[in-house]
């Protein structure tokens, strides 16, 4: 054979192999970086091609994970605004720089959004052509058998006495039984017809499904962010709440949220239960919280009972009510200088440590002093649910309500609540207030247990500690797109499983008459490089083929024979002709 002939031969072989291997996956081919010399359209096309290439997608993925890191290191405004404020105070030079780089709000920043939007455009640019390509593959036949099957990764051959047509017919029905898509054609070679078959299309379905599901997930998440609302409300035992904007203590919403999207409902906190560890090293650790509530839905006034626990929010419409925090609210009665009740009711105190040592203030705005002049009163102090007199500390010994006590310091003057900037209800602005003085001239402060009364000096009135109620803080979230997000996520997992666990593979069977009158059967398999099961599968197919195309008995020289054949009573070993 001359070199040119050999070269030509090799070229056709290579072409055949390319065709056989083609489109086993619809993954985009890698293109070299060709910088176009053409105008803007050329550039645009080049840019598009780059963006949708696997390499750029990889880089974008990598950037996405890198870009997510700062959000876990630097405090984030949407997660914890207070922490951000503290950070700003502590790092006066760094904070403005961070602000410029939007590092306090990484996940909605321009640069982070740019990464994932580009990634998703790249994804779409990849999925759409792949889908068309895949549909095309489904509508066309499995690729023809390459001329030289023995160059395929898995190969088997043997000689049989059955004639080629019968072998091919058996191969077709066998492959069909195994749910291969099959097609028989003359492959243009001198060696006769071959059956081409392919299986495992679900791999590509799974792959496409996974990527589409990711887009659905992203869109669901985005719409959730745009339409969401989230508000908090602190409710003292016995009090109620109705779901309108003005009732919230604190409210945040997405940019497309409208107030009329709030679900109409209301509820009342009937009772709050808290269980704490009573002994052991973790004494005082909370074990269980439960808020018993009664709620009404829509316009109806019929109350329904429900319990909200930490992992069990209450769903009403598209809103969910979560139990966020809880604490104690000492109930007090304040009388003014004239003996009239100036204030009566529970005042929520906020938890300061794990044992529910709480701080709070009582503000009395309508108050007349001993001489009947208008004034305002403020009490600032601590509440402890479990006070131990001998311990020498004002901190609570446990979070359970065992021995409640309250320590209050009294002020009078201007509370600053009329006009001016909004004020924290849990803090006392003592700028325009003066402390009451006791007889020695020290600040007037007193420890109270339930039932005790603190009488202010010089007939300025009194405060009575009536008892303790519990409060609970609820978060009401209006969530959009949750079902879509969940559906997207589960579909993505299913698609992922399909694309990773299903093997796409091709099997070819060729049969042709050899010079000696026998039939040569050739089988070959091709899968992705990772498929370790393909040799198994081909072996089992070859074994099953033995019924129709048994190995010719004395055929021991060719590499087709099985050495063990001789000492077997398999029908394949029957004398020539008997096996058909």
């Amino acid at each position, binding site marked *: 054979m001359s070199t040119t002939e050999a070269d030509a031969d090799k070229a056709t072989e290579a072409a055949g192999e390319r065709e056989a291997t083609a489109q086993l996956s619809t993954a985009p081919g890698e293109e070299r970086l060709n910088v176009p010399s053409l105008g803007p359209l050329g550039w645009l096309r080049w840019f598009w091609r780059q963006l949708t290439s696997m390499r750029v997608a990889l880089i974008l993925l990598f950037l996405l*994970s890198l870009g997510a890191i700062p959000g876990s290191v630097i405090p984030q405004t949407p997660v914890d605004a207070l922490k951000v404020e503290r950070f700003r105070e502590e790092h006066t030079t760094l904070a403005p720089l961070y602000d410029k780089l939007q590092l306090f709000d990484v996940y909605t920043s321009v640069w982070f959004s740019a990464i994932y939007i580009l990634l998703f455009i790249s994804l779409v640019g990849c999925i759409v052509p792949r889908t068309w390509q895949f549909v095309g593959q489904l509508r066309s036949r499995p690729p023809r058998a390459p001329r030289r099957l023995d160059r*395929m990764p898995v190969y*088997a051959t043997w000689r049989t006495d059955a004639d080629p047509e019968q072998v091919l017919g058996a191969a077709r029905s066998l492959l069909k039984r195994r749910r291969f898509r099959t097609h028989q054609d003359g492959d243009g070679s001198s060696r006769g017809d071959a059956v081409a078959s392919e299986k495992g299309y679900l791999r590509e379905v799974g792959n496409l499904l996974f990527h589409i599901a990711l887009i659905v997930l992203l869109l669901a998440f985005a719409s959730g962010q745009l339409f969401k609302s989230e508000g908090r409300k602190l409710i003292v035992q016995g009090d109620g709440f109705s779901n309108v904007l003005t009732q919230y203590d604190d409210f945040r919403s997405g940019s497309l949220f409208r107030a009329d999207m709030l679900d109409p409902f209301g509820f009342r906190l009937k009772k709050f239960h808290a269980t704490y560890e009573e002994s052991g090293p973790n004494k005082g650790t909370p074990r269980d*919280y439960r808020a018993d509530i009664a709620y009404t839905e829509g316009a109806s006034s019929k109350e329904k009972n429900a319990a909200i626990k930490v992992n069990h929010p209450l769903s009403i419409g598209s809103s969910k009510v979560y139990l966020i925090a809880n604490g104690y609210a000492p109930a007090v009665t304040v009388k003014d200088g004239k003996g009239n009740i100036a204030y009566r009711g529970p005042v929520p105190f906020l938890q300061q440590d794990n044992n529910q040592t709480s701080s709070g203030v009582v503000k009395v705005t309508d108050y007349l002093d001993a001489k009947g002049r208008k004034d305002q009163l403020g009490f600032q102090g601590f509440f402890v649910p479990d006070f131990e007199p001998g311990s020498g500390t004002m901190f609570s010994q446990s979070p359970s309500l065992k021995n409640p006590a309250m320590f209050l310091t009294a002020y009078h003057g201007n509370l600053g609540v009329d006009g001016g900037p909004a004020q924290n209800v849990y803090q006392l602005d003592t700028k325009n207030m003066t402390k009451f003085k006791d007889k020695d001239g020290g600040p007037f402060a007193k420890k109270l247990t339930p039932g005790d009364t603190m009488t202010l000096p010089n007939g300025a009135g009194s405060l009575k500690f009536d008892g303790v109620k519990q409060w609970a803080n609820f978060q009401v979230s209006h969530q959009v797109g949750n079902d879509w997000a969940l559906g997207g*996520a589960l579909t993505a997992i299913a698609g992922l499983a399909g694309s990773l666990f299903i093997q796409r593979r091709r099997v070819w069977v060729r049969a042709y008459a050899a010079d000696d009158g026998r039939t040569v059967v050739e089988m070959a398999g091709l899968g992705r490089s990772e498929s370790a099961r393909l*040799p198994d599968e081909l072996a*089992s197919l070859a*074994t099953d083929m033995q019924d129709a195309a048994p190995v010719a008995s004395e055929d021991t020289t060719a590499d087709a024979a099985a050495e063990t054949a001789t000492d077997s009573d*398999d029908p394949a070993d029957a004398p020539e002709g008997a096996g058909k």
Partner: protein
Amino acid sequence: MNLLAAEPNEQLAQISNYLIYSAMAVYVLAFFAYIAEWTFGSRSKVGRTAAALTQKAGDEGAVPAQESGVSVRVKKEAGGGTAVLEKPAPAAPASPKIVTRSSSGRRGDLPDGPGAAAGDEQGDMYGRIAISLTVLAFLLHCAGVVTRSLSVQRAPWGNMYEFSTAFSMVAVGAYLCFLLAKKNVRWIGLPLVTTVLLDLGLAVTVLYTDSDQLVPALHSYWLWIHVSLAIICGALLYLGFVGSLLYLFRDTYETKLLRGGKPGSVVSSIMERLPSANSLDKFAYRINATVFPFWTFTIVAGAIWAGDAWGRYWGWDPKEVWSFITWVAYACYLHARATAGWKGRKAAYLALLAFACFLFNYYGVNIFFNGKHSYAGI
């Protein structure tokens, strides 16, 4: 809810501690047995891989016309002795031979190394002793985890100590399962037992927390699903990580041999007993690819739980951020494996990085950041 407020059973918790200590002691013995296996194995003849490679390189030189004739035809009988074809062995006596021709790997189907014992009888005996000891240690380890669980009547992964003990238990369990399934994984024994000892040592000293009930936020059946999956994924990904790491070493070694270099005798002795770079790479890929959907589900399960517990399913809490980063890193790895120019070493580096992200998500986030997963308690 009496059950939840139940007093922890101190006695059972104490028994659990003793069991974990005993398991550690047995792991130490297993560790020495593995060392003995490797040591005795080094007596056997060196140079197998080098011979296989140089011979092939020679062939290549002799027949230059064969376009990269590197791809060796490895003939495998249908019922033959390779891991691939061993299992089904339907091999009707008359069935034809199946010839596989490796198309993967840059240097074809280099045969796997013979394993730590390398055919040395004494080495093999120590290897078997090591595995027996590992089984014993594993049983003690399991008993320790179960009694810990019984002492509080809840899932035994409520804090970092429990998570760590369960983590190494699953890793060893997976290794033993692979052995049972007759996979070629004995090479992973020594690195695995070493890290298990490190992990348990860290758990009983730094991370130890007394057995106790959980805070209300953890009272959910999702604890069983989300955390146990995280443990299983982590343990398996660790095995994949070891595979990738050894792949890189072995690949360097093979490349050096191919170029005609002479690696040091100690390096040769160890490297040539490992599976081929190609097998290690496949091992790592199969594990990582199999675990990836489960890791995805772990995150989704966490998100569903977060939706119930914290009022949103995704809020960029540090733990969420890092599980996302880990997920993206593994996605990178899987894509890299399918991309020309990224296969092989680059992809392996990505796999190492991805596992580093997982580790950081576990240790780093719990220790350095104060997020919503902070109750995991150090």
